[in-house]
């Protein structure tokens, strides 16, 4: 017998025998298209005295039969609050211009300078399609676009997976390309150039908005020209390649190892980040914009293992990252799921993260030294450790819906990567910790 048509006989027989046996089989053949499945979540993230974020996600998935699966996702987030600019605290009041150049703000003595103009909302759309191609080969494609006030991102990705060894081994390869465009408020500052200062010392502290927006007439023309001559936007391209191997070890254990390469090219600065230039005693002489290299190549190794216990799941992962900015990081994460009762589960979450500083990271610059080619005081490029402790409780409802709530605590402890501090800075906290709470509610139906 040589069949002319290559049909999935096994699946059709599974369906036919189910009809015959008149029973709900444990593995009903998924040949018919299913219902839409919605996963929704709302998350609140709040740092003490800093940024707070509300993020909502609606994800919709539908199986159109034979594992042809579409997923669409919409994410909205709203961000408010202040974030560290990179400038150092001083024992006197400091004055900064707002990124727009319209108005400024003052920072009290012995206080870490924060830019509190962050008020942004972002919408992101994702769409993904996945399907099998032939025996043991499956693939998928996806797109995303994301828009916020000063930022636009669009990306394309694709992946292929190959099953071997009775589907106990899966090799997957994927690639993504992303285009990002930033239109910084006030234009793109020139790296390591001095922050323009208004000629008049009428900076206010708190309710600057109403007043400063009407104060254009007071600007001296040289000051205004500095903003007008700036380029309005900048962009970058990011190419990712990901190769992964998944292996079923035994009836209870599955393991995954990924290697990821990510190459970014273009404008990689944060246009709002600053550095203080201090004299040998630690007193600020100048404030300059940061400057980073215009390429970055990252290598990621990711390992994950999941183990099925009789009453839960152990999930452990480790990630190592190294890039050509000389940042190295280690991430260890674990989730332990304990089933509670018939349909609930309790899941503690632990995460530990450690990173080294980028080679051009400087907590401040010294006025008596030549300007380096690149410099950034962004705490995210400095040395730090961070940990997360969380707990999640979830439950399946009788009608098949599921809900979950999780509460997490995140603390980030930046550290001195070996920089000697001039006298005036020794009494300042140059590496303030960030403490944040996360509260999230999920509902799936």
């Amino acid at each position, binding site marked *: 017998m040589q069949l002319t048509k290559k049909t999935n006989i096994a699946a059709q027989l599974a369906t036919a025998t189910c009809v015959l046996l008149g029973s709900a089989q444990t*593995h009903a053949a998924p040949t018919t298209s299913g219902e839409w499945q919605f*996963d*929704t*979540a709302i998350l609140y993230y709040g740092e003490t005295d800093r940024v707070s974020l509300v*993020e909502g996600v609606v*994800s919709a998935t539908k199986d159109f039969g034979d594992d042809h699966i579409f997923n669409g996702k919409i*994410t909205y*987030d709203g*961000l408010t609050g202040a974030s560290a600019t990179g400038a150092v605290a001083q024992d006197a009041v400091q004055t900064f211009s707002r990124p727009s150049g319209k108005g400024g703000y003052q920072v009290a003595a012995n206080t870490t300078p924060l830019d509190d103009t962050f008020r942004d909302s*972002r919408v*992101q759309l994702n769409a993904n399609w996945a399907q099998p191609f032939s025996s043991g080969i499956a693939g998928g494609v996806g797109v*995303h676009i*994301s828009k*916020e006030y*000063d*930022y636009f*991102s669009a*990306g394309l*990705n694709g992946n292929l997976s190959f099953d071997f*060894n*009775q589907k*106990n081994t899966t090799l997957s390869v*994927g690639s*993504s390309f*992303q285009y990002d465009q*930033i239109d910084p408020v006030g234009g793109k500052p020139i790296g390591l150039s001095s922050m323009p200062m208004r000629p008049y010392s009428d900076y206010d502290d708190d309710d600057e908005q109403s007043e400063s927006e009407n104060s254009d007439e007071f600007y001296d023309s040289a000051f205004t020209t500095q903003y007008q001559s700036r380029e309005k936007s900048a962009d970058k391209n*990011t190419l*990712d390649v*990901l190769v992964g191997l998944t*292996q*079923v*070890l*035994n*009836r*209870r254990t*599955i393991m995954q190892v*990924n290697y990821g390469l*990510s190459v970014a090219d273009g404008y990689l600065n944060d246009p709002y980040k600053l550095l203080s230039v201090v004299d040998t005693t630690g007193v600020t002489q100048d404030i300059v914009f940061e400057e980073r290299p215009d390429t970055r190549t*990252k290598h*990621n*190794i*990711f390992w*994950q293992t999941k183990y099925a216990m009789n009453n839960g*799941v152990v999930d452990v992962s480790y*990630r190592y990252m190294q*890039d050509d900015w000389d*940042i190295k990081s280690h*991430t260890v994460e674990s989730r332990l799921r304990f089933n509670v009762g018939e349909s609930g*589960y309790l899941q503690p979450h632990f995460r530990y*993260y450690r*990173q080294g500083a980028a080679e051009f990271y400087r907590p401040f610059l010294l006025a008596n030294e030549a300007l380096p080619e690149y410099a950034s005081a962004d705490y*995210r490029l400095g040395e730090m450790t*961070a940990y997360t402790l969380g707990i*999640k409780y979830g439950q399946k409802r009788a009608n098949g819906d599921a809900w979950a709530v*999780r509460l997490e605590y*995140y603390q980030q402890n930046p550290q001195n990567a070996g920089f000697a501090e001039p006298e005036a800075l020794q009494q300042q906290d140059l590496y303030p910790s*960030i403490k944040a709470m*996360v509260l*999230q509610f*999920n509902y799936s139906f």
Partner: protein
Amino acid sequence: MKNKMKLALITIVVSQVVGCASLGVQPWERDLLAKEEMALNAEGVDLSLDDHIYFSKEATSGGRGFAGGGCGCN
């Protein structure tokens, strides 16, 4: 010679049937791995929310998936 081949063949088959020789499981032993919570991308919404937070707070991103963040938060 032929007899030898037969023996070798059956040994392999039998060891597969018993299922103790090779890495992995038989299809009927997938009861635990087939559970939703054993999927490597289980709780996908949580994972992507976490990725977004850590992407905007740390120098590392990706690993589990692509490193691109799609936002201007870093």
